[in-house]
């Protein structure tokens, strides 16, 4: 049987200038009812005039009769710089229907003209205040409308030379654009004779958002988890173009999420009923990119005790002293390993003590009439993670009693 043409119809093209994207939607009316077909659509995009095809590609999808298909295309050239034209054709690529395997005719060209500057004695520069990532390749253009005289363009004050796209449009390809300052990279064009005819733009080049490094969490009191990381570069830009990147903690077992106020640390409340194993994802995001890092750990293996306090010395004699100290409680079943350091006579002696509650240690074999410094720090005895900070004091042994 003679098959009806499957030319794509109702082609609509919309524009997102900021993203330099064409959004297409179309349908195919003549497909048989109640059937899904594997189809290939061939899309042609021309610039300035229909004969100047700059892009062609295929898009495969399955669809039904009268279903709307959506597809987008990103232009390397700002869409204001030139008129664009789009057309489509289709073929059924379905083994079940070999008879349909032939290209339809093309749809008619759809024109997209974002910036009509014909006849205007004005200079336009595009894109306007675009935000890009360091290292990107960018194309800038000026449109000179009715202006006949030469136009010069400058990047950060240095003249740049472009290519003529048409009598009124020149394009400038900037490759691997560097970050220069938070206020953006300045691009400016002017007519050589009448300098008042000028225009320009700022290219906001953002540093690349880095994956957080050294992501680590610990608790000092079994009440709060303190997570820290190295954020890398701050990607904030001036002129409200991009705030500093955001950081969010997500814990998968509890399903809870927290927005972190600071750029390199975040506190997470440990509730009574919370689990022992934590699976954190630290997500960082700016306008251009999103990155994340994971951390899986057992809370009891990440205890960083607070420093001991109330260090005292009792029964100080010419050759011995009893050192005592207090520790912040971490629960009845928690054992601390405390390390005592004794400094005196140019020597340092170290002793280890396991401590459940408060600590006590006999310092003996001391020298009479000698000044000593004794300090102590502690760590988790079961799963060593980190020493606490030191606490300590000095003391002096008395003269030996006359023998």
């Amino acid at each position, binding site marked *: 049987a003679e098959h009806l043409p499957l030319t794509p119809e109702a082609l609509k093209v919309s524009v997102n200038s900021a993203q330099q994207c064409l959004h297409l939607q179309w349908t195919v009316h003549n497909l048989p009812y109640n059937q899904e077909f594997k189809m290939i659509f061939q899309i042609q995009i021309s610039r300035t005039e229909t004969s100047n095809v700059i892009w062609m590609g295929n898009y495969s999808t399955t669809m039904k009769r009268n279903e709307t298909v959506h597809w987008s295309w990103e232009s390397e050239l700002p869409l204001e710089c030139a008129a664009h034209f789009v057309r489509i054709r289709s073929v059924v690529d379905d083994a079940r229907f070999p008879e349909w395997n032939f290209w339809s005719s093309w749809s008619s060209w759809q024109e997209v003209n974002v910036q009509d500057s014909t006849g205007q004695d004005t200079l336009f520069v595009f894109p306007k205040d675009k935000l890009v990532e360091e290292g990107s390749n960018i194309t800038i253009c000026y449109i000179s409308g009715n202006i006949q005289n030469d136009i010069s363009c400058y990047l950060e004050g*240095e003249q740049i030379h472009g290519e003529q796209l048409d009598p009124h449009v020149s394009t400038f390809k900037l490759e691997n654009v560097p970050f220069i*300052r938070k206020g953006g990279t300045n691009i400016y064009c002017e007519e050589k004779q009448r300098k008042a005819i000028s225009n320009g733009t700022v290219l906001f080049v953002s540093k690349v958002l880095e994956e957080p490094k050294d992501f680590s969490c610990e608790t000092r009191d079994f009440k709060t988890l303190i997570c820290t990381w190295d954020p890398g570069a701050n990607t904030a830009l001036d002129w409200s173009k991009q705030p500093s990147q955001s950081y969010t903690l997500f814990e998968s077992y509890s399903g809870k999420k927290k927005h972190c106020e600071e750029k390199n640390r975040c506190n997470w409340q440990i509730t009574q009923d919370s689990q022992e194993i934590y699976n954190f994802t630290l997500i960082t995001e700016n306008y251009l990119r999103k990155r994340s890092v994971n951390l899986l750990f057992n809370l009891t293996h990440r205890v960083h005790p607070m420093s001991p306090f109330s260090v005292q010395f009792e029964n100080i004699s010419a050759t011995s002293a009893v050192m005592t100290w207090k520790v912040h409680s971490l629960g009845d079943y928690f054992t601390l390993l405390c390390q005592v350091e004794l400094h005196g006579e140019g020597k340092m002696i170290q002793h280890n003590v396991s401590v459940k509650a408060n600590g006590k240690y006999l310092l003996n074999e001391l020298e009479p009439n000698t000044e000593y410094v004794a300090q102590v720090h502690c760590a988790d005895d079961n799963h060593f993670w980190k020493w606490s900070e030191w606490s300590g004091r000095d003391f002096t042994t008395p003269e030996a009693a006359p023998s």
Partner: protein
Amino acid sequence: SHTLPALGPAERGKIFKELRSLSKMLLENVKEEKGVPMSQSYTLPCLIPDAQPPNHINISAIRTYLQTIRQLRDNVTLGEIIEHLDKLRFQDASKTNISVPAGTLENKRFILTILTQFSECMELASKPSNSEAQRAG
């Protein structure tokens, strides 16, 4: 009618000298950014037409322009300058309307152009007027 501020010539002179150095500092800071050309489209009304020293500097209009710049790009020095201007300002001075240009580069050109003219204006304002020069002579 204008209510003259309570400041005497000496105090006004001191403030203008301070404004001159602050405006230079601010301008140097802005000038550091390359690739921003001056514009012929913006003019800071430095002088009040037909007014005689010492009240010939259009403090109110200058303040409005600098406040506009402050909304575009806040800055500590700018805040200091506006505080000094407030000491000099006539109470019921005329209102100045400013339309801020669109686009970041145009904003930068506006700021550079106005701050350059402000610096020149403060240079002018901190010069002793003829009468003051005679009295001092």
